[in-house]
């Protein structure tokens, strides 16, 4: 039980999270609200601001009548005082450029009896437009303290903390709030009084805005840039062209900028693993374990970091300029044919890096149905974990061919994933009952120049989050594969014998009949199963099973390709043929081989059944398609 708790509340895009990061130095933990699938961040105010108040960052809301699941969480945090005691002060983050519309929330909270402190953000934009806000007048009119914040530079944060402290001290004299969550009810008695209230807020915001330019319309200068850019960026035809251009650049960057870094990490861990193995005496179990087990597993986790970082960086950049909301608008109509909305765009886009953060990003889709369909199709997007598998199999399939063919094939696999995703969405769209709240309605923030350090910082935090979430399962399974392929006969002189008698070998042979129709033998089967830890494990476990070690070759992949070429099944026929490799590519494209994703779907839908249906359906579909492909090409 903490006695000093403050909630940060504000509409989406108000700069709330940026302020939270300034206040807390990003050292927060996420908490799941009991009974809800949405979580929020809780942290202590960073010591440099001279206070130790606990602060809760809530999902964005427009008013006190919640419409989506995350908005409901904010409502409950405010009115339910379970584990943290009452909220002692509510800091309402108001976008200074949108005061007229966002002040409504401030008044509603004040009317509910909360101690309110207003943090007015985007003050830099207002200053640039030659305007100034009369903070004292605003504070007097609202009857609560108002602090100006510069989100880009962190100006005003110290003032805010002091104001919060004062506000909390005065809270002590007030009766604590009720224990139960009041039912969600309309705040205004009738529409007319709501309208009158809005007009009052508009008049107030016009009064506090001091215009220093001579423009007739107060908003003129502020809106000029956004209006000009949007004339082109949201042009019915040119806008789509822009969109395609920007997204192509984003994808190209993910691959081309990231690849040298990924190669470097890959080689580093190869050298490291080889070095560790060579330290031990010949056949030493310990050095083998540390080198081929632990070091290689770490490599498997870290190799994706550059790619995910670049994706988060570019998405963050687009978001902070204000373009991302516009991209969602441009794609809304095409998406609506598949039962999705423009709000599904960012989650699906993130799915190309990793399904785990992508599924978390579905939370601000207000329609439960849209959110559900989005979550169902995200795992079909080509996540970066599929890339090493694709690149290995394509390198095998297209050896000696011109490089562009690999590029085209890779593009086909991406399109293939999207295509299957569209089919699944279409199927669900037809059969899932229509629900309420299927609105799009999106606020498009004013364009602004992003600050590199803020965007970099946020991309880094998100990347670390990925490593923390996806790292342990990848690591554990990679270790399990090592154990499974090394024991019980670890003293065998021959690696081949060691493997064939290993647990993995025994398991693989038991289930071999399942993989025979795909044209592969038990060794590939074991690799496919181990890929359920994380898809990228496929390549490394294949390498372990075919006993390719770093010493054999300069590159693990080259060694693996040689082994694949020589691999024969029990009857002496080659395992990796055009048919079986195409089958494997299609299998990886469709299959949901990712335990972290399934765990995330369970958490976010709150139901085990849907996650299991998704898991079984996608893997079955993948299997059938792979068998079909093998038949077709053999």
């Amino acid at each position, binding site marked *: 039980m903490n006695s000093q708790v403050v909630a940060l509340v504000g509409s989406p895009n108000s700069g709330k999270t940026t302020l939270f990061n300034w206040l807390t130095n990003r050292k927060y933990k996420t908490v799941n609200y009991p009974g809800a699938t949405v979580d929020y961040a809780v942290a202590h105010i960073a010591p440099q601001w001279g206070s130790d108040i606990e602060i809760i960052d809530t999902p964005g809301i*427009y*008013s006190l*009548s919640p*419409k989506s699941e995350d908005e409901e969480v904010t409502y409950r945090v405010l009115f339910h005082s379970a584990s943290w005691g009452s909220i002692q002060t509510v800091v309402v983050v108001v976008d200074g*450029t*949108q005061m*007229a*519309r966002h002040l*409504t929330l401030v008044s509603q909270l004040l009317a509910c009896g909360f101690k309110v402190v207003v943090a007015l953000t985007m003050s830099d934009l207002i200053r640039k437009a030659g305007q100034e806000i009369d903070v004292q007048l605003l504070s007097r009119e609202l009857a609560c303290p108002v602090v100006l914040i510069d989100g880009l530079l962190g100006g005003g944060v110290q003032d805010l903390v002091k104001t919060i402290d004062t506000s909390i001290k005065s809270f002590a004299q007030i009766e604590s709030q009720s224990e139960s969550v009041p039912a969600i009810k*309309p705040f205004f008695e009738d*529409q007319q009084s*709501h*309208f009158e209230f*809005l*007009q009052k807020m*508009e008049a107030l915001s016009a009064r506090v805005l001091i215009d220093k330019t001579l423009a007739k319309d107060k*908003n003129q200068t*502020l*809106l000029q840039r*956004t*209006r000009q850019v*949007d*004339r082109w960026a*949201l*042009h*019915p*035809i040119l*806008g*789509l062209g822009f969109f395609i251009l920007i997204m192509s650049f984003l994808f190209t960057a993910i691959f081309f900028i990231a690849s040298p870094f990924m190669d470097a990490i890959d080689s580093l861990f190869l050298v490291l693993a080889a070095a560790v193995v060579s330290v031990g005496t010949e056949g030493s179990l310990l050095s083998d374990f540390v080198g081929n087990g632990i070091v290689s597993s770490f490599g498997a986790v870290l190799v994706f970091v550059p790619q995910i970082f670049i994706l988060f960086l570019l998405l963050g950049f687009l978001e902070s300029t204000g373009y991302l*909301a*516009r991209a*969602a*608008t*441009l794609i*809304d*109509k095409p998406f*609506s044919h598949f039962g999705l909305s*423009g709000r599904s765009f960012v989650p699906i886009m993130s799915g190309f890096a990793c399904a785990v953060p992508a599924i978390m990003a579905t939370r601000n889709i207000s329609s439960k149905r849209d959110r559900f369909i989005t979550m169902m199709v995200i795992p079909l997007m080509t996540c970066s974990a599929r890339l090493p598998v694709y690149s290995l199999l394509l390198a095998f399939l297209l050896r000696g061919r011109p490089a562009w063919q690999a590029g085209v094939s890779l593009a086909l696999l991406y399109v293939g994933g999207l295509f299957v995703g569209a089919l699944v969405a279409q199927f669900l769209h037809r059969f899932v009952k229509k629900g*309420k*709240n299927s*609105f*799009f*309605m*999106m*606020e*498009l*923030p*004013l364009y602004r120049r992003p600050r590199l350090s803020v965007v970099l910082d946020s991309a880094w935090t998100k990347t670390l989050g990925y490593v923390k979430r996806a790292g342990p399962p990848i690591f554990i399974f990679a270790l399990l594969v090592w154990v499974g392929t090394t024991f019980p006969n670890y003293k065998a002189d021959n690696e081949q014998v060691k493997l064939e008698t290993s647990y993995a070998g025994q398991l693989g042979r038991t289930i071999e009949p399942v993989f025979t129709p795909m044209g592969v033998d038990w060794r590939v089967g074991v690799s496919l199963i181990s890929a359920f830890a994380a898809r990228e494990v496929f390549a490394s476990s294949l390498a372990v099973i075919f006993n390719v070690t770093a010493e054999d070759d300069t590159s693990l992949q080259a060694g693996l390709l040689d082994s694949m070429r020589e691999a024969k099944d029990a009857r002496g026929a080659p395992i990796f043929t055009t048919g079986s490799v195409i089958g494997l590519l299609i299998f990886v494209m469709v299959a949901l081989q990712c335990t972290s994703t399934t765990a995330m779907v369970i958490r976010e839908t709150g139901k085990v059944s849907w996650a299991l249906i998704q898991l079984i359906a996608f893997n079955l579909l993948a299997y059938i398609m792979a068998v079909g492909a093998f038949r077709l090409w053999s």
Partner: protein
Amino acid sequence: MEKTLRPFSNGKKIKLDQIIGDSDTVERLIDMGFHPGIEIEVINKMVNGGPYILRIQSGFIALREEEVACLKVVGL
């Protein structure tokens, strides 16, 4: 006569008269700042019945066609 924003071309500014539609959509439109008497500027319309980009005061808001249909304006 009551009209929707459909016939108005880009750059036009129109006064909002009424908000009529299902209660959730209407409520959210009001949350976004729409109310009778406010001036709406049509910024852009996406092709194929895609969202409208509107401006009220200093806010740019994207609305789907069926959401725009709730906004009734007075015809000129």
